[in-house]
């Protein structure tokens, strides 16, 4: 589903942040992406999202060479990927409901056609009472769940989540993680970037991609 071969990346003229990465992500798999702060987790996710171009190496996404894709193709692939950003990136002037519905709206779909679906998902992540609230009045954990709901609404084939438990207490973190597990069981490949070791230790049997010293080590 995602394959990296000898991928290297540097920002502008700076030093290489990622060096010689080779790994792949299988359909319907579940993995943590971890490493110390500043190791390049967010950078690696951006590479998978095609929002950064690698300086070296080959990235294959859904069987297609990322370097050869035109803009429309990139948009098409992005519609198959759900992302939860570390800083949420909710639109402040839209309500929670409208934020979560955004991926459907940008495809030109009628609001009446997806309303029930969005409401159901919001209830599922525990935001049923906060649908009309705007992000600035949401708590950190509520924003996090809104961002997760927005990533899930399209039923993506691949979910990339950047520190999705960074702003919540441990019980809620576990609940969110179970939510990702459920999603994974329903057929979505999931990549969760985190440096929450305690959390990962509760799911010790899970595959880990560990970034350190600019390189990636995979623990199956």
């Amino acid at each position, binding site marked *: 589903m995602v394959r990296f071969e000898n991928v290297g990346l540097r920002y502008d003229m700076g030093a290489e942040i990622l060096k010689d990465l080779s790994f792949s992500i299988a359909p319907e798999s579940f993995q943590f992406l971890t490493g110390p702060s500043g190791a390049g987790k967010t950078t690696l996710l951006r590479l998978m999202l095609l929002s950064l171009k690698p300086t070296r190496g080959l990235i294959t996404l859904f069987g297609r060479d990322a370097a050869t894709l035109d803009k429309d193709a990139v948009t098409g692939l992005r519609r198959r990927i759900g992302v939860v*950003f570390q800083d949420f*990136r909710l639109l402040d002037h839209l309500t929670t409901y409208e934020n979560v519905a*955004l*991926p459907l*709206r*940008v495809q030109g779909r009628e609001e009446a056609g997806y309303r029930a679906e969005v409401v159901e998902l919001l209830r599922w992540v525990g935001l049923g*009472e906060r649908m009309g*609230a*705007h992000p600035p009045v949401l708590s950190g954990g509520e924003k996090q769940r809104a961002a997760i709901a927005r990533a899930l609404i399209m039923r993506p084939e691949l979910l990339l989540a950047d520190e999705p438990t960074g702003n919540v207490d441990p019980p809620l973190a576990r609940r969110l993680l179970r939510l990702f597990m459920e999603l994974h069981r329903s057929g979505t490949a999931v990549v969760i970037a985190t440096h929450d070791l305690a959390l990962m230790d509760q799911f010790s049997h899970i595959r880990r991609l560990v970034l350190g010293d600019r390189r990636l080590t995979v623990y199956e």
Partner: protein
Amino acid sequence: MSEAAPEPAAVPRPRREVPLVPAASIAGRALVSVIAIMTFLAALAAGGALLVAGTSRDWQAAVSREATVQVRPMPGRDIDADVARAAEVARAAPGLAAVEPFDKGQAEKLLEPWLGTGLDLGDLPIPRLIVLRLAPGARLDGPALAAALAAALPDATLDDHAAWQGRLSAMADALVGIAGVVVLLVLTALGLAVAFATRGVMAGNREIIGVLHFVGAEDRFIAREFQRHFLRLGLQGAGLGGGLAALAFLVANLVTAHLAGGAGADEVEALFGTFALGPRGYGAIAAIALGTALATGWMSRAIVFRHLRGLG
């Protein structure tokens, strides 16, 4: 921001979709003001040009319905006989509804404002006038009549106001031309302002554009959202500016009607008529406003597209 009311298990009611580009922003308000001012100026210039052109047409129509024959007194000739003869020649010309020679008394009366009453003008060599009025729709063949007069009399000349008319229409054309240039300049400035404002709004909404890209929006979709945003701003600004301009003409019309006959009113009326713009004038203002709003939306769409392509 108000605390959103909790919606107990409520499914959001269907409602109009909130624009994805936030409606209220400082850059947006500034743009509405700029568009309003520019539209106002363009509409004033265009309305003024229409008034001048209309008045000049009225004048020319009025002036060309009349011509005069002037008979100068010459030593050794009987001026009364010459006037009668010139009138006879004029009556033979086609297209004339009336030929009215002024007699001596009338000629003196004409000069009264300059020379005062009670003077004995009897011995002064005063030229005599014959007023020719054209039949409705007819045109006077000036050169032919002038030639006929010259053949019949040595001391009669025709003034068909051609030179005066030419200068008048040249002047009106110049005014209309200047107004056209003003409209063009204003619209160019407006275009530049819109271009800058579009870039400003794009920069201010970079976050939103990024999010839209990540949730799978095509450039076309994003450009349409921005176009809608700018069209809305354009309509607000142009409506305001065009409305104020129309109001200005309406008020000027009422004021001149009120002052009619007062000092200075004649001069103003001579140049602009009565400020009565008429449906065509107000239509032109509406067209300028609408055109401005549409151009604003269209232009920003083009700029947004270029910007998005640059984002790669």
